[in-house]
């Protein structure tokens, strides 16, 4: 298993600003994943972050809007840039430790006003 600490747990931000979400894992993992969960919805994968390489973005998500860093095997950040109210969501990071199970952080609930 893996324990994932994500912060902040929630934030209220002004439109046009940016927020960086941090994800710390208690063990080294190759792949980290960032998801978005819009209100009342399921999870949509934003990107996959590998250490030492550029993140791989899913269709509909671009690096300029959601830049990701992965400086080492236990840490990643997701930035939500130039925010608008449509970005109000829960953002979740997850890891797969090779046992066909994903472990998630508790999520960051973002409200853009």
């Amino acid at each position: 298993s893996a324990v994932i600490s994500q912060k902040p747990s929630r934030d209220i931000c002004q439109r046009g600003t940016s927020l960086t979400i941090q994800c710390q894992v208690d063990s080294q993992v190759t792949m980290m994943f960032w998801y978005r969960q819009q209100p009342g919805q399921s999870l949509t994968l934003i990107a996959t972050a590998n250490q030492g390489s550029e993140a791989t973005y899913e269709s509909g998500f671009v690096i300029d809007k959601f830049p990701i860093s992965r400086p080492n095997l236990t840490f990643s950040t997701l930035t939500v840039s130039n925010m608008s109210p449509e970005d109000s969501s829960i953002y979740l990071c997850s890891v797969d430790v090779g046992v066909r199970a994903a472990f998630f952080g508790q999520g960051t609930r973002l409200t853009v006003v």
Partner: protein
Amino acid sequence: TQLLEQSPQFLSIQEGENLTVYCNSSSVFSSLQWYRQEPGEGPVLLVTVVTGGEVKKLKRLTFQFGDARKDSSLHITAAQPGDTGLYLCAGEGGPIEGAQKLVFGQGTRLTINP
């Protein structure tokens, strides 16, 4: 693109009743995972099924993977208020999508009334 259709999306039943949640796709998955999510928390894994036809039991919860590995079901017997939550199925991509990437169904928001 792999898609998972989960049904029903909302279900409200009385304590003690049985229920089944379905997760269907036209795609084959390497594995199918079921998660439960409570408010303010990330999803927590309940079970992973890997083999076509596999059945796994977790107390009052029974999970089944279809023979063709395209669908799955979650059956809860004698539901309890503590079973309330958002249930999510997630398919692990096959050779085309790549392993470890999960495709999530829309979720089933389950409410068990005392």
